[in-house]
């Protein structure tokens, strides 16, 4: 559980601190993996298979998320010629 919390915090730090979109996606992967670690630890604690099943669902979701996210990164790179995540900010909010 402590491992999951530390990994999640590191992923959050990376998500906030980095500006490169590829690093942001990698930090998202770290955070999803940390959530999976928490599920596995809980499942192992009570000896139930439910935790592993939730990890399987997290795995499928991470795969779908990263494929769409990387396609978006490719699109942004071809449109703005940079990976800075503030380049597409055109709303002037």
């Amino acid at each position, binding site marked *: 559980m402590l491992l999951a919390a530390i990994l999640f915090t*590191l992923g959050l730090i990376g998500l906030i601190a980095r500006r490169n979109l590829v690093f942001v996606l990698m930090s998202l992967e770290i955070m999803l993996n940390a959530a999976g670690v928490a599920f596995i630890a809980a499942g192992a604690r009570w000896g139930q298979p439910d935790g592993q099943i939730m990890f399987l669902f997290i795995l499928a979701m991470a795969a779908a998320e990263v494929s769409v996210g990387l396609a978006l990164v490719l699109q942004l790179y071809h449109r703005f010629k940079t990976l800075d995540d503030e380049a597409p900010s055109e709303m002037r909010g």
Partner: protein
Amino acid sequence: MDAAFYIASVVAIGATVLTITRTNAVHALLYLILSLLAVAVAFYTMGAPFIAALEVIIYAGAIMVLFIFIVMMLNLGERAAALERRWRTPGMWRGPAILAGLLLIEVAYLLLRAGNATGAAQAVEPKQVAMALFGPYLIGVELSSILLLAGMIGAYHLGMRKIEEMREEHGTHIDEGRVVASGDLVHAGADRADRAP
């Protein structure tokens, strides 16, 4: 058994810290793969061998290969080649190699040790997982299959938009037949016969 879990945890945390502090994307990916492998070892010591195998195959295998492909696609050109020569300095591989060697020693110890398979107090077998997955959680399996289908279609659509834009930008430079063929995977390469080298 606790010691094995803690060693894997320390390796995972150290590799994650190195992941989010690297400036080079490929080095960061190398450390991220190592972090996922360490988490897989931690799963193994927690009594989930099936999930440990899935972590290695899908996370460290498939998803990270996707990342590496994207990083390589974004770094094309002469500038990338010059950077590559500069990165290929001896010693860059030492950090990941040391951490991976630590994990390898740990896995070898766990596998060679006599006794039960995982060593955890209460291991959840893959059979229990499968019985629960295709029993009460069947609707979740169907929903995740729909999610994967949506992800595939979304990635395909976003990837295809690029070709349309290239066609608008370059106009006459791109052969019309090649664009149509590459946009249609079923008939891709059907027009190659008369043009093949």
